[in-house]
């Protein structure tokens, strides 16, 4: 799944380079310039790809244990605050 997600991200980068739309001055719905509408769709597609990434390819083995985290913070504070 992770490779599929990275493949989709690369696909987004490729379709972002839309030289075929360069001189298209059509207005979508009569008010939205074509290039703006196209790239708005890319923004929405990006959110969908990142939703898939968050659902199926989220990093594992993170420091998500709040107790361990709290202990680490307490230890750091004992050792001299932010330093």
């Amino acid at each position, binding site marked *: 799944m992770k490779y599929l997600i990275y493949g989709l991200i690369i696909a987004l980068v490729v379709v972002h380079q839309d030289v075929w739309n360069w001189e298209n001055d059509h207005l979508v719905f009569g008010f939205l310039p074509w290039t703006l509408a196209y790239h708005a769709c890319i923004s929405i597609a990006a959110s969908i790809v990142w939703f898939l990434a*968050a659902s199926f390819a989220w990093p594992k083995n993170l420091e998500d244990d709040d107790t361990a985290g709290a202990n680490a913070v307490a230890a750091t504070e004992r050792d001299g*605050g932010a330093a």
Partner: protein
Amino acid sequence: MSPGMIKVLIIGVYLGLLLCLGIFSSRLFKGTSKDYLLASHSIGPFLLLMSLFGTTMTGFALVGSTGEAFAEGVGVYGMLASSSGIIHSLCFFVLGVKLWSWGKKYGYTTQAGFFRDRLESDKIGLVLVPILVGLVVPYLLVGVISAGKAIEGATRGDFLWMSESGGIPPWLTELVICVVVLVYVFFGGMRGTAWANTFQTLVFMVLGVVAFYLIATGLATKSVETGRAHTIVDGERVVRTEPPTGFLDSLQIVSQEIPKSRRVRAQVDLKDQIESVEAPPQFRTRERLDPWMFFTYMLIPFSVGMFPHLFQHWLTAKSGNAFKLPVVAHPVFILIVWIPCVLIGVWATTGLINIPPPIASDPNKVLGFMVKSLSGDILGGFLLAGILAAIMSSLDSQFLCIGTMFTTDIVVHYGGKDRFNDRQIILISRCFIIAIVTITFMLSLTNIAQTRVFQLGIWCFSGFSSLFPLALLAVYWRGLSKWGAYAGVLTAAGVWFWLFSASNFGAIDNWSVDITLGEKTIHTMPVATIFLASAAATIIVSLITPKPSEATLLKFFPEKA
């Protein structure tokens, strides 16, 4: 009450609310520097989304995008907004989550702390910190200048006794917002900053949508009243006399005029504007953009991976899962903010509204002018508060991060952990912040303020982007050595300065690095050269120099050991 005073009053109330928020959040302050700088890793998904988004969207996004769309056309959205939706979330996903995890586990507060540990090099901090602070200053300038210009444009003619243009002079706005942000950052620390960011992000997103509605409907109504709008009847362009029937109709009335550029307005009388001019389409398409420039622009959003203020925000997260919402929602949030700004910018290029020469020659003032011209005094005041909200929601994090870097990476690191107590650390941090803000304010009074905000931002972001390869390699490549890191950072700094000086220090708009291939010349963004040079130097030097010890590699890459 005069129109100008109404706006000033509304903005004053808004700034007062922010101060109250900072003071209230200080009541939850635990008294430790860890709580002041990282909110004790307590920020959940929603606050993290709003603070990350609010921090990345600055004057560059609102004032700059409108001004750049006014100058260059709608292509500005593809250049930076849609690419940022892909790349920013990528940075949160591949760097943010991992660095948060290590930050929480090993107690990092700054990037230099991480790199010192990861590369077993104490001196890397001495190289990195001045460069990062040096790049944050122009970023601060972008915000400060945007605020001054936007308010000046929006109050033009309201305060004739204050300045030649009758607007609030930029230096006054800049001084006031610097002081307000300083006060709430000092009171609230990172928790106050996260809350203020959330509040301000909500304010500027809601008011941005309201502004878009008001400007679209106001511009359409005025255009019809003054006989500037047209419609097609039996294939003929005729002057439209029926008023707009709703929001969609208003959008259509104003957007169909986009091809009528400033050139048309300058050359043609109002009466024959519709009938006799072949409208140039450049503001509706990307005719004015070079495809290679567009392609290499995609490297600019990688700057997010090395913003020190974002690094600090990442570390405030309560858990790794708190990143999921920001990663998913960020691209759509960008869309919500940028599409209206870009449309407002290109509408200002049409013949539907007269843009006075002082405004047209300084695109940073276009958004403020559109708000002033097309909304009432009360709503105009709220909309200006929204613009300031976007700008201040970035300034606060930047102020806090430069103080954090100075105290953590320089004062405490070299002075010793036991030499200062938490109260002293916070005091030193505040003094350094005041010094940097003073320098920024003084710079905003110089000729730099005449630079287009967008152009200044691009050079600043190019510097941060060129450090992205270092961050990525540090997280994912065991082979990165400290000498490779030094080579990468110094190469990035050297090439950046060389190209920046070649562009007459940003004074030449849209300056590019031109590469000749046979008979064809390719125009590329300077960031491409700096990025590639930095990545190549980091990798090549790392390959031929010793890696960190096995113990360090085991600490960061246990699964590969």
